[in-house]
């Protein structure tokens, strides 16, 4: 039995990381570079799977090509963007690499730690974007971008972790499609629902609610959840 991470969730985790980066990218060229990098990382993971299951030589070639594409995409974005724009997407891009390494069947049984680091890095994207006021609080499109990127960061962790844990318990050779699909759909739904609630509530209150009220509300919710989690 091969107890390496499962492919579907692994690929989706990389896609989520890429989506998180693209959502916070400010310029067209950065978005293009990030998309290219993400596509390269997906190809890299597929190549690693191929190398493990079918043809080693072909798989290594595909994986290296993917890695080259990812590096090229990242470099294209980096050379054309200005530094502050780059600072917002850089952690997310690094996160993409981390999650790809964590779920690619390279060595051992995958790495939960890499997936976790990737989640944190992608998480930084929307925080930096909103913190540096590139995403503006009174533009609803920006609000949606930030919330989407945040949901993407959560999915990176959830899908990546599921990929590793399924691989360890069931193995990559087994059929796991429905398990991964239902699981992924569940966490996507939770993200979509909570983001929608926030979006709708915020949309009604743009300019009207004082910040303090929102702060108070959120702090109480966070405290409540922290208490529940004890």
């Amino acid at each position: 039995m091969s107890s390496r991470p499962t492919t579907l969730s692994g690929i989706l985790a990389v896609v989520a990381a890429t989506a998180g980066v693209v959502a916070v990218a400010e310029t067209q060229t950065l978005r293009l570079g990030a998309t290219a990098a993400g596509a390269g990382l997906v190809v890299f993971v597929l190549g690693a799977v191929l190398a493990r299951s079918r043809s080693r030589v072909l798989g290594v070639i595909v994986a290296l090509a993917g890695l080259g594409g990812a590096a090229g995409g990242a470099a294209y974005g980096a050379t054309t963007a200005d530094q502050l724009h780059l600072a917002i997407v850089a952690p997310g891009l690094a996160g993409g690499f981390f999650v790809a390494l964590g779920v690619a069947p390279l060595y051992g049984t995958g790495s939960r730690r890499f997936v976790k680091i990737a989640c944190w890095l992608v998480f930084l994207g929307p925080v930096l974007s909103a913190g540096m006021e590139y995403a503006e609080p009174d533009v609803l499109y920006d609000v949606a971008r930030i919330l989407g990127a945040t949901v993407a960061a959560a999915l990176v962790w959830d899908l990546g972790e599921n990929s590793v844990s399924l691989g360890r318990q069931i193995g990559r050779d087994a059929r796991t499609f429905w398990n991964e699909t239902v699981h992924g759909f569940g966490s996507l739904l939770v993200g979509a629902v909570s983001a929608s609630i926030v979006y709708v509530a915020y949309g009604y209150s743009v300019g009207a609610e004082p910040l303090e009220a929102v702060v108070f509300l959120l702090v109480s919710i966070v405290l409540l959840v922290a208490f529940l989690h004890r």
Partner: protein
Amino acid sequence: MSEEDEEDVQRTRRWRGMTALALFAGGVGVLTNRPLVLLTAAVWVGYAAYPRLTGEPSVELEIERSLSDDAPGHGDVVEVETTVRNKSGFLTDLRFVDGVPPTLSVAEGTPRKATALRPRGATTFSYKLTAKRGRHSFVPATVVARNLSGSVEVDTTAFEKTVIECAADIGDVELRKQASQYTGRVLTDEGGSGVEFHGTREYQPGDSISRIDWKRRAQSGELITLEFREERSAKVLLVIDARQEAYVASGEDEPSAVTYSVFAADQLFQSLLASRDSVGLAVVGREDVWLPPSTGDEHKTRAREILTKSPALVPSPPRKRSDEDMFKNLMKRLDSSTQVIFLSPLADDTVVEKARRIDAHGNAVSVVSPDVTTDGSAGRKLAQVERESRLSDLRQAGIPVVDWDVEVPLAKVLAHTREQWSK
């Protein structure tokens, strides 16, 4: 049929980090006075609450297995198709590892599957096993179910009795001449009705007309009766040696001689029963097991039960030595027409002595001895030599012995030694 073992419920704590991210984002948002950062915190709060929204999954499964061949030959590939049916609520995350018999290896595919199952939904998967000689029972399948968020993991098992029985067909067992009064296949030295010519004698009133030699009558006018060798069925008692001494094996992870004896007994039992001999079963070892010779399907089932479930035949040796009384009991129970087949690795002299005594007592004895000795250290060689001398002791006493190299199918060995047995 499903059987739930004790469930092991654990929290995976996989969403633990979400609270930290929510607090971090919230903190940054407040400190920098950025409402959008605060909003991201709300999303994290949603994820932190997610595991709270999903409860503990209750798991009740029903397994069905179908085998492409439930009595394959040694080395054959058997396809196993396992169907898992959900008897509980929606299982969003089910991880199933089929309980492949530990003695068999998977040849193709994987006995594992992860899926989601709606109530009463079922999933089917198949894989291939390579069959080996012996009876192989499936063990309980490992089941791991997580709730939708994956925060709670329930570890349990599900069992469905399935057996792959890989038995070499051993054909007819050659028996010694001792026979019962019933018609069967043991050729006796007594004249009577039968098919093989035995002799002639003067006609006595009461002889069947069909047995009168009419040719002779026409030639010379004498009234002569033809005699044929009587064919009778045998009454056989299989005695398994499961004393502490018999638990010898060729290596640490190898099955003991008792395991092989049980396997051979099963084979012999089936074969003898099929040829309408009456067969009994006795075990000398941890406890006294006694199934008097008989025939019929019910009898067959009872013997199966003993061979598979009797505590006297478990794979680990008994702690204390068995006393001599067991052999005494055995001899008391034997009637004069029963012949005895001993199944013993001949690891000590007791069986040799008892076999000779029973044989001298009037019950024809044969011995089937699984050979688990190996080359190697001086001690092992000595055991090998000792066993060989026991074999020759028995043969000198006129007791036929099948020296069974366990690597070779029993049927082959029996066929090979058949000539010697019938002599």
